[in-house]
């Protein structure tokens, strides 16, 4: 062999394998309930009819003639086919995405943020939000030793984040979330993290997940403001993963985007703090993870940097066209009065109801189990219970060379056919 282990790119060798991957490879039988990843369809949640109907027509336009689809489905499909080269979603698109869809995204953002306008030039569509995040992180990466780029990352964080940072050669600077306060962000923790790592690397950005993955915490305005102020003071880029913005269900909780809060803080911040926020199809409502499309919006970034984003996305040629169209359908849904509106609204309501009920019920059951404690979630699609494992279990795990919670999850899989994720 030419390429022995010695030749493998050391950055790739350094990628921490998420324990989740290890657990998945252990799946012993078919009837497993797999709730380890954020994949609602996997466990039986149904796709949104409007999305699937329009995509079906776009794939097979013959359906325009010969089929009882609602007229608004047909109209939308025709409109979307017009924006595809050659009238087919089999064509490539521009690297940053179809302009029409970027405009739809910008319009959605503007509406969501009470009129704070978004420009399609600042919107970049990619094959999933993680891909967009990697583009920005790669841009930031550099330096070695003391000058190596660092990014503040929450503890706990989405399981996809550590391997992404490893691959990009960027150091994770961990900041603890406060479990006893529902996993809230704490300014002191952020500051402490910065202080202790300042001498060891060059922290250049803060990564936030809001609503939190895996915690389910939703930040209030004050909390977001504090982070923005810190970013401004320390000259840090804000990287905000807002994929679960559509699933906030906590009482008296609402989702506020970082962009909105930033712009409502006055020009001293709104004109200077650099922010990139991420969203994708892999969210709660449409949950079309398998279609692979997401986007990022860049705020206050140099136009030359935006050009670089585009060049970097060129190496993928373009994001799947079906995914891009699905973004349009997700962010520009049927309106009241449209033929598909009622069904669509009902389906969204059902998802929301199931989510809320599940959250309540699971919380009840978990908090009743000996050794378990779980913070109530306000948004997102996960619960993140804490489990106090007896000494016996911890010893057994140690003997097998496993972390105690991985061992627990393994046994749960083997004995009950339930696959959980582990952070």
């Amino acid at each position, binding site marked *: 062999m030419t390429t022995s282990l010695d030749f493998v790119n050391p950055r790739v060798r350094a990628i921490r394998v998420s324990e989740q991957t290890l657990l998945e490879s252990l799946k012993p039988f078919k009837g497993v309930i797999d709730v380890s990843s954020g994949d609602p369809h996997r466990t039986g949640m149904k796709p949104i009819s409007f999305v699937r109907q329009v995509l079906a027509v776009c794939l097979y336009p013959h359906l325009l003639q010969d089929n009882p689809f609602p007229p608004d489905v047909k109209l939308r499909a025709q409109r979307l086919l017009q924006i595809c080269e050659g009238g087919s979603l089999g064509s490539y698109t521009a690297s940053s995405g179809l302009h029409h869809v970027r405009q739809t995204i910008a319009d959605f953002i503007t509406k969501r943020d009470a009129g704070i306008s978004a420009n399609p030039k600042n919107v970049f569509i990619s094959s999933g939000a993680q891909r967009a995040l990697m583009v920005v992180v790669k841009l930031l990466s550099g330096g070695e030793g003391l000058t190596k780029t660092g990014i503040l990352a929450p503890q706990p964080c989405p399981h996809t984040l550590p391997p992404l940072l490893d691959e990009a050669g960027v150091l994770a600077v961990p900041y603890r979330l406060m479990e006893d306060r529902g996993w809230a962000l704490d300014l002191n923790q952020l500051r402490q993290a910065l202080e202790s790592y300042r001498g060891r690397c060059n922290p250049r950005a803060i990564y936030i997940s809001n609503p939190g993955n895996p915690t389910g915490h939703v930040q209030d305005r004050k909390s977001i403001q504090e982070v923005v102020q810190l970013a401004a003071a320390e000259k840090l880029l804000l990287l905000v993963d807002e994929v679960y913005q559509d699933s906030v269900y906590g009482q008296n909780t609402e989702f506020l985007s970082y962009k909105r809060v930033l712009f409502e803080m006055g020009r001293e911040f709104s004109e200077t703090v650099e922010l990139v926020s991420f969203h994708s199809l892999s969210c709660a409502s449409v949950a079309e993870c398998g279609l692979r499309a997401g986007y990022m919006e860049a705020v206050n970034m140099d136009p030359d940097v935006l050009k670089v984003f585009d060049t970097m996305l060129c*190496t993928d040629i373009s994001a799947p066209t079906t995914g891009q169209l699905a973004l349009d359908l997700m962010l520009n849904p049927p309106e009241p009065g449209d033929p598909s509106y009622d069904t669509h609204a009902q389906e969204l309501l059902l998802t929301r109801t199931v989510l809320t009920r599940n959250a309540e019920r699971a919380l009840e059951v978990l908090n009743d189990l000996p050794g378990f404690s779980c913070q109530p979630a306000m948004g997102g699609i996960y619960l993140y219970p804490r489990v106090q494992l007896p000494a016996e279990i911890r010893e057994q795990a140690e003997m097998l060379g496993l972390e105690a919670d991985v061992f627990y999850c393994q046994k749960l899989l083997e004995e009950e056919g339930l696959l959980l994720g582990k952070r």
Partner: protein
Amino acid sequence: MSVLQEISSNVKNMKQLEYSDLARRMTQIKEDLRQGVEKPFKEVIDVSWGDPHRGGMKPLTFVRQVLAACVYPQLMNDNKLPVDVRQRAQKLLDGCAGRSVGSYSATQGIPEIVQRVSEFISRRDGGVPSNPENIFLCCGSQWALSRILNVLVNAEAAFTTGVLAPAPCYRTTTLSIEGLGGVVIPYYLSEEQGWELQVEELQQALESAGGACNPIALYVINPGNPTGHVQSRKSMQEVIRFASEKRLFLLADEVYQGCIYGEKEFVSYKRVLAEMGPPLSDTVELASFHSASKGFMGECGLRGGYVELVNLDPAVKKYIYTLFTADSSAPLLGQIALDLMTNPPLPGDPSYFQFDQETQHIKSTVDKNVKKAFEVVNSLQGFSCPAVEGGAFAFPRIHLPAKAIQKAKEVGMQPDTFYCLKLLEEAGVLVSPGSDFGQKEGTFHFRFCILILHDVLEELLRRLTLFHTQFMKDFS
């Protein structure tokens, strides 16, 4: 503070294409036309992409019916779709978690599809075995290529990693190498011999690289992009021997294997390697790439590609697996497209007749295009173009008059970019300038797609002829 002040140096190395300026200009021109501005043409013909649907080619009915049924299974309730379409869709949905194309799949792809892809490969290669464990489905073949490159390119080593790549070469590949912190070592293809790969040039390339980098891989694309050359078995054997001798990882981009014209036949690197027997067949490391974007299907937008690994150290494969896992899975519709590509309808299937008609029609269109393009382009003064043997493009050479070269220099453009810009502005045709692909100093080319409707090709050639005749008058 702007992030730009300190951009990663690897990223800085990724140079924007000449083509980007042309593309921007085209957008402006299209907007002008929409606003009713008078121009010598009513619409722009964009043949700068290897994108058959963009060029007017129609998707295959069977493919789109199955995809639609997978996306909206209720379509299968009324029996309007042929029975083989429904059966295939059901089978494919059985392999999707939650029976939805909206779920993630296993890292390497839906196991049943990976299995069928490996069977296709084995059939294609006259029985040479293919193991599904060595196959990864991914979001387009370029994505897979950049993942494999990521394993090979070590940006932190004392010596930069070098990857041999052809000149001319498809720019996305060289961009990926640069973006990862590697350096491209160009080996010149022989234009006089129809863009043949000559092993002496590989040797020459390595020597020119000298000690400045650590060459670790050799990238070949067969059939060629942009050249349209199809390699002979002999040439492939020489490449394999060279790779073995110089201990290079062989990256074989074979996405155009479904696009063959004329007498040459496509044979895969894997097959040639296997038939060379041990020790080569057991030791040369190879990654070969294919996709659903080209050939009869032309489904570029679905992003369905795969890579097959041969002779890899299992420990190294483990890291490739880790990288692919970090990406979540390939888009499910792209995976389904691969299943359909590798397992089309067979004689006797209800959909076979229409499928066969459609593919024959595409084949005869492209055969006609290849002939016509060759005739017309070679009849123009100052043009020379070898016959296109395979692939999606013609890559003619233009011998530009000295005056034109001078004018280009004055306006700060590459001479072929200058030609292409004028072609766009005066004739409404967008092609890709040869400067973006790497060409021998002092030679000029451009590339255009021939997987397009015959009418579109005729119109394109008509406009080119008119434009070129005038251009040569103006600059003689």
